[in-house]
């Protein structure tokens, strides 16, 4: 696991000494700020508010489509360079000839992406702090919402890591990831379109919006966690096999 820690630290360092993470952080916070502001003004203008809804629930739940759209931009951009860049510049040769296993390479890189993703979300905690000044905040709901976001991010970044390992071009990795994740997102929208039946159930099961709606109400549905975990594990497993396969290229 020595290799894992070294790679993890190098990746986090590289992400934050280059502009990428900062650009993503800025764009992300601008978008989140705009979304949050419009939700707050919306609630402020409402005469009456029902018991189980509020700005926090709306931000993470009912209105989560906006939030997920920004993730469809941020996650693929975060993961696109992770392997593609190393393969294009040739640094992968130095990396893979060190005494490390493909699994620690993949996990180290992925761990760094997930950490950066969490760091990008961190400033949004301020929104909740601001809300607390004017009202009551259900910290359980806040916790479960962030857990839901972490799950979605973990799945998205895992798929992005896999796509980045499939190509030497960052642009191709970005497009493939957006295509894949947008497809997954759209599949979830099917819940509201199709007639009741197996296909609709399937759509509901993979729906990212459905997941955020549940989690923002404090409902920790194990099926959602298992789904996110499965996508993450599958993506990382296949990535490990891809990295291993380069020896035979």
């Amino acid at each position: 696991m020595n290799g894992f820690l070294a790679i993890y630290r190098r990746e986090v360092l590289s992400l934050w000494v280059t502009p990428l993470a900062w650009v993503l952080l800025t764009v992300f916070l601008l978008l989140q700020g705009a979304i949050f502001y419009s939700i707050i003004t919306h609630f402020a203008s409402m005469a009456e508010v029902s018991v189980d809804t509020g700005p926090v629930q709306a931000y993470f739940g009912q209105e989560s489509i906006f939030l997920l759209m920004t993730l469809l931009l941020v996650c693929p951009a975060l993961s696109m360079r992770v392997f593609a860049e190393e393969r294009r510049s040739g640094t992968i040769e130095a990396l893979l000839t060190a005494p490390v296993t493909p699994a620690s390479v993949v996990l180290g890189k992925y761990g760094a992406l997930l950490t950066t993703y969490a760091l990008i979300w961190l400033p949004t905690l301020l929104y909740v702090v601001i809300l607390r000044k004017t009202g009551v905040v259900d910290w359980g709901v806040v916790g479960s919402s962030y857990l839901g976001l972490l799950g979605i991010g973990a799945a998205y970044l895992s798929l992005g890591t896999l796509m980045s390992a499939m190509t030497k071009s960052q642009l191709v990795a970005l497009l493939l990831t957006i295509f894949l994740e947008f497809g997954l997102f759209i599949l979830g929208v099917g819940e509201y379109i199709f007639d009741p039946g197996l296909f609709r159930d399937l759509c509901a099961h993979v729906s990212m919006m459905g997941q955020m709606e549940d989690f923002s109400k404090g409902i920790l549905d194990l099926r959602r966690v298992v789904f996110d975990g499965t996508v993450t594990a599958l993506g990382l497993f296949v990535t490990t096999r891809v990295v291993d396969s380069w020896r035979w290229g």
Partner: protein
Amino acid sequence: MIEVSNLTKDYGTVVAVRDLSFSVGKGEIVGFLGPNGAGKSTTLRVLAGFLGASSGRVRIAGHDIAEAPLAARRALGYMPESAPLYPELRVAEYLQFRARLKEVPRAKQTAAIGSSMERAGVAHMAGTVIGHLSKGYRQRVALADALVSDPPLLILDEPTAGLDPNQIREVRALIKDLGGDRTVLLSTHILSEVEATCERALVIDRGRLVAEGTIEELRARQNSSALNVRVRDPNAAAEAAIGRISGLTLRKVSTDDASAERRTLHLSVGDGLDTELAIEALVRALTEAGIGIHALIPEQASLEQVFSELTAHEKAGAGLVRAGGER
């Protein structure tokens, strides 16, 4: 240190290395020589564990690279061909990352990084961002990376490519200095590099080993060697005298501009004839004929000639016999 037996590596339909066998002993500095595209980099990448062999076995420091890849990779420091580095990191940060990756004990890391930078001549660049370094310095950082875990075996893929003559001299001196307690295998397509740094060379062409041996052995492989004799000879009697010695053939006669009496005879010594014995017979024949010898210059077979003979594609069949070894 390195034992390679029947190594073959193909990329789909293209066979890059075929049936390659050689070994490198402890403490040797061995040059891996061949024209561009001969399969040098592919072979070194297999040895370093970056590529898998299609067939054959490779043992590094006693560890089979297929069965114990991590143990094998721990024993070696590898410098890839184009010295790829992370441009966003500082030199010291990069080497710190590499030291951690190569499992240098935490307590020894600072000293290991310091001494590797010192040896590679980049100590004064420790705080510089790699992206701002010149090609020569990047090459040296990659070399420092290969040295940082103080491995018993160094595999360097074209360590002097892209350097200026001063830097080349420094790197060669460093490689010579590293030998002794370490084994070094370096690839190059520059012959003088092998002559300057290596004790032994492996010559590879189109994926096959065409020759191996010490520099002297390789030099001796030239099919025939040459002699130049400068004589004072107004009557062309020397030519007749030389004609009587079997195995010596006169290739060319050039006359001195200043005096028509002085000529230089360019001779070649035939196969199977000892050059030294030929010189003896030649001198005797010329003195008996009463011809004054001004100079006798044996033409040293240059490695360039041997190399081009070995790797000439028309003569591929002739080059397949090894110099000092058995098949």
